[in-house]
């Protein structure tokens, strides 16, 4: 028998599988039962199958700054994460609502009247001072206002089990390929685990994304628009994913030099000659897209691409300038943007965030900095974050001085105790903290891909779920509504 540890009774965080009294939640009853019948050796054997599966297929990710060779096999924990059908429907509605509002916001900024700024929902100066605000995107319209065709929204569950939005990723969110590969590996390692559950499939992603990309093709594109994925190349951390998506969608994977612009039309160079390109799903940063309009030293982009976008002969996804809407300084305003554009109450709350340029919020935060989390808006990957309760008085005083010197550069958040779930650590299934990144696809309409990428911090007590910092992942099951049956592939 493998030991399946319950969460500690005094744990602050919500545990996905066990309630506060240590009883297994009904959602997890069957899977806990099944795992309780495996002994440690059996679990190790199956773990080996998963690892072998990823190794054989070359499913890796890149760790920058690692002298041991930058490629690692993708880490997947064998205990799955489950989401009940009713719970998922709520998340799905909340995500679709949020991304719809964010797309409206981007259209308002770049091709609209700037109504949200004029009406004081978001301060205009905050938008203008955002690093992600891209002046070259002005006047470039996108069919269906789908500025963000693919969004990855990071959700966490607080101590009460409430899902909250930690962060929006609206530029080049990655990870969808791992969702699909995790399911495949799970199926191989636990072929009978599906007997107890009806799980929403994930294999339709390629079709779903392709349909969305086809729907944003320029009007002159015809019935069969040519779609390409523009990758920076093999040295990029997510190259595996770029190649994977090209295969799943049946489209060309190209690099900048494979494309050429002639009289404001983008062409793909092929052995049969030049073929006009309608939609470019790009995985390179805005400032590298076109050396004419952006960084002149970019070797990854396509000269003249911005002119073609302005001429309306090609659609680039995600659109240029989306970084303004996923700026950490804009995040606190997103719930108000939902109310403003859609006239609806937000379904998914934000992690409670205070902005330091509002004197009232700043003073209130200064009263209790030792209970809060202090984040610089310009950093990512956890850099520069001060956790109030772990900080010394001196560190808090320094943080306070830095906030006063440049309030635009800081936000302060309530601590969220990320929920936990059993994960395989040294032959024992122990609770570890996790988050969830669902993917939201927008074409003619906005749809949410079932489940998403669950990331788990494999170190005890750690809240850092990033794979580049030792985080793992979990296959994530959205259970089908009862009474329906679907194949779990």
């Amino acid at each position, binding site marked *: 028998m493998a030991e399946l540890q319950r969460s500690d009774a005094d744990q602050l965080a919500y545990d996905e599988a066990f309630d506060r009294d240590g009883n297994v939640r009904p959602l997890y009853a069957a899977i806990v039962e099944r795992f309780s019948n495996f002994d440690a050796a059996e679990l190790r054997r199956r773990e080996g199958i998963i690892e072998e599966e990823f190794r054989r297929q070359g499913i890796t990710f890149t760790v920058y700054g690692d002298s041991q060779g930058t490629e690692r096999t993708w880490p997947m924990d064998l205990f799955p994460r489950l989401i009940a059908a009713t719970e998922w429907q709520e998340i799905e509605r909340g995500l679709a609502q949020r991304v719809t509002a964010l797309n409206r916001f981007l259209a308002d900024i770049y091709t609209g009247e700037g109504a949200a700024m004029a009406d004081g929902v978001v301060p205009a*100066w905050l938008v203008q001072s955002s690093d992600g605000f891209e002046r070259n995107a002005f*006047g470039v319209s996108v069919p269906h206002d789908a500025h963000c065709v693919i969004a990855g929204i990071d959700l966490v569950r607080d101590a009460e089990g409430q899902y909250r939005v930690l962060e929006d990723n609206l530029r080049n969110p*990655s990870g969808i390929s791992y969702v699909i590969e995790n399911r495949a590996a799970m199926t191989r390692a636990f072929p009978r685990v599906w007997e107890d559950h009806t799980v929403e499939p994930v294999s339709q992603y390629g079709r779903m994304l392709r349909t969305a990309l086809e729907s944003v093709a320029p009007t002159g594109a015809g019935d069969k628009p040519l779609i390409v994925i523009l990758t*920076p190349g093999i040295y990029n951390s997510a190259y595996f994913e770029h190649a994977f998506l090209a295969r799943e969608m049946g489209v060309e994977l190209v690099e900048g030099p494979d494309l050429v*612009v002639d009289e404001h039309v983008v062409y793909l160079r092929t052995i049969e000659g030049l073929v006009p390109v309608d939609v470019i799903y790009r995985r390179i940063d805005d400032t590298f897209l076109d050396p004419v309009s952006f960084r002149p030293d970019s*070797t990854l982009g396509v000269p003249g691409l911005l002119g073609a976008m302005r001429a309306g002969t090609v659609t680039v996804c995600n659109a240029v300038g989306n970084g303004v809407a996923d700026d950490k300084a804009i995040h606190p305003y997103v719930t108000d943007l939902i109310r403003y554009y859609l006239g609806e109450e937000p379904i998914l709350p934000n992690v409670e965030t205070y902005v330091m340029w509002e004197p009232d919020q700043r003073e209130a935060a200064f009263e209790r900095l030792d209970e809060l989390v202090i984040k610089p808006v310009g950093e990512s990957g956890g850099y520069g974050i001060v956790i109030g309760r772990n900080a010394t008085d001196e560190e808090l005083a320094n943080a306070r001085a830095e906030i006063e010197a440049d309030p635009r550069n800081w936000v302060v958040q309530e601590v969220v105790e990320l929920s936990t779930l059993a994960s395989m650590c040294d032959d024992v299934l122990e609770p570890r903290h996790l988050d969830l990144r669902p993917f939201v696809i927008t074409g003619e309409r906005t749809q949410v891909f079932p489940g998403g990428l669950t990331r788990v911090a494999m170190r005890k007590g750690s809240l850092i779920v990033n794979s580049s910092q030792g985080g793992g992942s979990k296959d994530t099951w959205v259970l089908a509504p009862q009474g329906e049956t679907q194949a779990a592939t």
Partner: protein
Amino acid sequence: MRLDIAYRLHFAYAEPVSESQNEIRVRPRDDLRQQVLSYRLTTTPATRVLQTRDYFGTTVDHLGMRASHDDLLVVAEASVETTPTDSAPAPASCERLGDQQFVNEHVEYLAPSQHVQWGELVNEVASWAVRGAADDVCERVQAVVQAVPTVLTYERGSTTIGVTLEELIDGGRGVCQDFAHLAVGMLRCIGIPARYVSGYLFALDETRLDEGPGESAPAAGDGAPGSGAGADGNSHGLVGEDVFTPERAPAASPAAISVQTHAWIEAAVPGYGWHALDPTNGGSVSERHVVIGYGRDYNDVPPVRGVFNGSADAKVDAEVIIAQPTAPVSMVTEPIRRQARVAVSPSTDTSAQQQAAQQQQ
């Protein structure tokens, strides 16, 4: 004043190149001060030109030449009617610069930008420039603009586009865009919003162009305020289109290029609005200044930016001819003609580094 402007840009390559792509910003702006009567841009060989307007309201002509070519001529012709500038702004107390609404409205023109970054040295020069100035924003703006030619001596070809403000002060020499950048930086660092203006200057025949190297004073060694050119820095008369500066380009083609026209500045005065001044030419901006557009710095409104594919050296002639059709023949200026060579310098990032640097969220 009615002015006819012909901007002629000639790319000549030592060997045939292909896939040249360019953005051109040379069309005068329509605003309350000036009205564009006509504008036409043609290329030889002919190609389809796409005209758009950018975030700052500047007209952009996008044009490219995919086929192999060793020669590309772009000619833009504009007729524009300018009106004399308004009277000087009314005095405004410096206290009003701190007004939160004023700061928020001008946030883009108060923050450092790509070519306008400042540190201690610029701070020092700026506070030296406004020492003894009254509590009046206009007077401070004037003081800064007049201090610039005492820090910098005008010298053609003395700088390239990547130069920092600190390097400029140290070097003590520059061209119109350097004068403008330094003035913008000094103003921003004392809390006065300032923007960079690109345009044309109709140089009347009584003015002379700075042609002689003898006029340029040696660089100020320590860049201390007041050293360097001294009062003589102001005596060059009007200075027109000038320098050509290569931008950093990748080792592999395409190469990057840029050409410039004249540059001056505008400062935001509380209760008045944008006030235009020409730091290169003694301060005042008149109906002989024709605005193309403005931005945070040069990078938002370069007359030409572009790349081409090929290893050839490029020679670029940029020529501006400005004429006043109603004036007597003797009033028509000589063409302001400049030439420069494009240098292709290697990029510091390798392609692999650039690939790795692409953020996957």
